[in-house]
């Protein structure tokens, strides 16, 4: 169990590093002069660059974050490996669901 999770954590990190760089650049650009829902959505809805980019970002996040959280629960909260794994699997699924829903919402699907 530990070996595949270790590898997945590193692989998802490598996938995410360029995403995070672009995301930071988008944040720095977008926050100038304030944000409105209309302004955000006009940039994102129906964008075939934006939607796959953030979908893949969300999938990577849903892999990366729960594995890190699992390590913290085991090492710092002294939770058992089993309990930590179950909790983090559920948390990962929640992140995946909420993240893809957010991409669908901001990307203009389902509306």
């Amino acid at each position, binding site marked *: 169990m530990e070996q595949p999770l270790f590898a997945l954590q*590193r692989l998802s990190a490598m996938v995410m590093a360029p995403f*995070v760089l672009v995301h930071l650049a988008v944040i720095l650009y977008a926050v100038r002069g304030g944000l409105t*829902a209309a302004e955000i*959505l006009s940039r994102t809805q129906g964008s075939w660059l934006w939607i796959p980019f953030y979908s893949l970002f969300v999938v990577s996040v849903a892999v990366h*974050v729960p594995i890190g959280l699992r390590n913290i629960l085991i090492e710092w909260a002294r939770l058992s490996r089993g309990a930590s794994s179950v909790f983090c699997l559920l948390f990962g699924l929640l992140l995946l669901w909420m993240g893809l829903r*957010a991409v669908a919402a901001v990307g203009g699907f*389902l509306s």
Partner: protein
Amino acid sequence: MKSPRNHRAYWAFLGHRLSGLALGIFLPAHFYVLGLALDQRARMDAFLKFADMGAVKFGEWGLVLLLSIHMCFGLRLLALELLPWSSIRDARLSWISWGGALSLFVGVIFALGVI
């Protein structure tokens, strides 16, 4: 005797772990607010107006800083684990300073953008 934890690499480990924990806790709220665009656009706008308050902007600034720190210190970990070490002491400690400086730079650009 100097504590074995009182060195730059330990502080980088702590910064990486705590920033990751904070970002992980923040993500569901982030996704929830973006999800409001689906059927509650007025609530999303109300939230964005709330997010314009100084204290919330300060929180956002902190999150941007944490994201940048987590990425920089994470890249150092990847380099330590996956790239060859030119010497046994090659712990790439300078990456910690560069990562911190780059994150502060990102924080300054964000602050200039929202002020």
